[in-house]
């Protein structure tokens, strides 16, 4: 089968599953059949993706198949289709593999849900995979935008999965608002690009000024989608969704769409050094800031959420330094180990029925497989040499070494230490230490949950060794060399772990924990946005409401009122009395006569 057909099958299979479940309501309402349909769709997608990958390993060339879209006369404004190259195929593999693992995990994890909710959950998963694949295979920015909005919608629906819970509903609305606010940047960026060049291609070469504007606007969307400072606040709240959803959407794939966009639009970003400079700093600030907040979270999922924002900061910093490949590589390894961490956390939450780290503890004897999976993920995230995260993080940091980026380099090194430190804290608190009341009844999850963990543990361990192959796919240079960065980075990781063992092994608190906790509870960024929402958005809304209610409605109501009142007073003329009519006739005649005489 031709590569383009395979890519189309990979994209359309989940769409067919989603449509089937949406249209045939009994399938969805029964629950279990919905899971099978969705899993089948994802399996077909993954199979197609693997065949595409094998084709590329055999030396297959880039393929671009499109058909005209939005035709105006004989000219098409855009194209829709698939682009198969060194970026889309690895990304497709990552997305489909993680999605399949998460969906398999969900079969057991969501088992206690009522059948209708269970069916809805899997329908949304199928919709998500379709939307994400649209993003991945898109040959231009317009199709990417369509997929981008679709994943935003499914994210909203899945965060608000427990919509009866007010906090979940609020979190969903917040995520939707924040990302839509940022997505306006994408839309305006597209408009500017189209007006300037007449196309939606990322390969177009507008003037330097236009390129700066377009990339700056696109980057606003990236800040929102990839949870960068100061729009990161929706990501911790998004943890209200089911844990597998957090693993797939809010750790591995959807939030990485922002990074993917920049990797895709690299030719455009290469023309805008100013935007890249801003990206470098935004990424660095996010990486450090989020890592600091991750240190004091009491909810295991929130630790991982802040960690995700922090790691996305690394990717964005690498992209800002002009090393798209480093960012892409870290995206790939991060997708595996962060999905693994989230699913392992889900397994723990399933066992102790609580998100709080206080309710865990001493789980390593009760849940050996989950513990092993979480520790592998944590070591990979911390960047311990040999694990996947080490190679990609090393590449990110290496891309900053020299070139006058010493300040971000130093800050990100500090953040690497913090990463190892806070992951050490979580591992010690959850799996070592004393058992709590809830964790004493915990037991290992079944194979349906541990199976996906084992599958994801393999790339979390080994995908770092694929860097050379990935570099050859995207035609980037990749050398593993023993320089300053790897030595400092690995010592940071090990130092962080040692520090965590020393500090938390005895049940101590992190240094500056008080300050960080205050920072976390005060949540200045959150409050700023909330007051912006209240004053700005609600202010405009109430002004518009006032104009609508009193000015526009008032005018309409006045017209109606005046007509009614006028009619009522004119009705008094019609007395119904014959004498009055006779008098009127007489008066009328007299008036006519007078007019005739006086003229």
């Amino acid at each position, binding site marked *: 089968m031709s590569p383009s057909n395979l890519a189309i099958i990979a994209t359309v299979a989940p769409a067919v599953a989603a449509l089937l479940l949406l249209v045939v309501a009994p399938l969805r309402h029964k629950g279990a059949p919905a899971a099978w349909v969705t899993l089948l769709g994802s399996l077909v997608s993954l199979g197609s993706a693997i065949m595409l990958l094998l084709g590329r390993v055999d030396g297959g060339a880039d393929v671009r198949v499109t058909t005209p879209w939005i035709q105006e006369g004989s000219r098409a404004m855009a194209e829709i289709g698939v682009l198969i190259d060194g970026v889309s195929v690895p990304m497709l593999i990552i997305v489909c593999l993680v999605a399949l693992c998460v969906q398999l995990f969900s079969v057991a994890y969501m088992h206690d849900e009522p059948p209708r909710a269970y069916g809805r959950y899997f329908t949304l998963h199928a919709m998500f995979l379709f939307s994400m694949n649209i993003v991945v295979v898109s040959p231009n920015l317009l199709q990417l935008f369509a997929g981008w909005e679709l994943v935003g919608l499914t994210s909203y629906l899945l965060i608000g999965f427990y919509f009866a819970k007010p906090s979940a509903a609020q979190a969903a609305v917040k995520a939707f608002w924040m990302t839509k606010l940022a997505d306006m940047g994408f839309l305006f960026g597209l408009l500017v690009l189209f007006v300037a060049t007449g196309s939606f291609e990322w390969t177009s070469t507008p003037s330097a000024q236009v390129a700066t504007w377009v990339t700056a606007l696109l980057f606003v969307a990236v800040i929102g989608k990839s949870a960068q400072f100061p729009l990161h606040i929706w990501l911790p709240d998004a943890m209200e969704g089911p844990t597998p959803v957090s693993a797939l959407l809010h750790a591995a794939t959807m939030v990485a769409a922002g990074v993917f966009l920049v990797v895709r639009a690299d030719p455009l970003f290469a023309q805008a050094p100013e935007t890249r400079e801003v990206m470098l700093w935004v990424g660095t600030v996010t990486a450090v800031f989020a890592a600091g907040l991750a240190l004091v979270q009491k909810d295991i999922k929130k630790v991982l959420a802040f960690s995700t924002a922090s790691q996305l900061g690394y990717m964005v910093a690498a992209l800002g330094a002009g090393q798209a490949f480093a960012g892409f590589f870290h995206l790939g390894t991060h997708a595996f180990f962060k999905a693994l961490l989230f699913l392992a956390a889900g397994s723990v939450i399933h066992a102790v029925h609580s998100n709080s780290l206080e309710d865990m503890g001493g789980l390593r004897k009760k849940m050996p497989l989950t513990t092993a999976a979480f520790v592998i993920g944590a070591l990979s995230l911390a960047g311990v040499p040999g694990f996947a995260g080490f190679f990609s993080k090393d590449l990110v940091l290496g891309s900053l070494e020299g070139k006058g980026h010493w300040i971000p380099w130093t800050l990100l090194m500090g953040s690497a230490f913090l990463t190892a430190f806070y992951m050490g804290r979580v591992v010690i608190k959850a799996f070592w230490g004393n058992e709590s009341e809830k964790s004493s009844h915990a037991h290992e999850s079944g194979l349906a949950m541990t199976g996906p963990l084992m599958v994801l543990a393999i790339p979390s361990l080994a995908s770092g060794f694929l860097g050379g192959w990935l570099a050859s796919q995207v035609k980037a240079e990749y050398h593993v060399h023993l320089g300053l960065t790897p030595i400092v980075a690995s010592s940071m990781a090990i130092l962080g772990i040692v520090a965590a063992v020393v500090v938390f092994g005895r049940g101590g608190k992190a240094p500056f924990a008080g300050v960080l906790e205050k920072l976390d509870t005060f949540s200045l960024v959150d409050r700023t946005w909330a007051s912006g929402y209240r004053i700005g958005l609600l202010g405009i809304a109430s002004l518009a409401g006032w104009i609508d209610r009193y000015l526009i409605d008032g005018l309409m109501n006045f017209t109606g009122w005046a007509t009614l009142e006028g009619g009522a007073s004119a009705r008094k003329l*019609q*007395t*119904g*009395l*014959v*004498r009055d009519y*006779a*008098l009127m006739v*007489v008066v009328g005649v007299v008036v006519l006569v007078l007019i005739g005489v006086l003229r």
Partner: protein
Amino acid sequence: MTLTSCLILAAAVMAIGLYGLVTRKQAVAMLLSVELMANAANMVFAAYGHFRGGPSAQVFVLFALAITVAEVAVGLALVMLLYRRHGDTTVDLASEARQ
């Protein structure tokens, strides 16, 4: 007897009819007033026919009288209906159409 005195008489009859039409409440009285006004007009016709023109004006008066009779027939029929409905012939009773 001149044309002027005839016209003054006709005007007087017209004024009496008008006054009666406006002031009376009884349907029959109003009908009579209307008749007076119609006859005042007929008098003007007849006077002009006698002093200025030929016999054609007086022929018109004959036609007008015939039509007035028909009008009275319709008017009396209305009065009859009013009486059957309300047991009285005061025109103020016939104001249901206002609703």
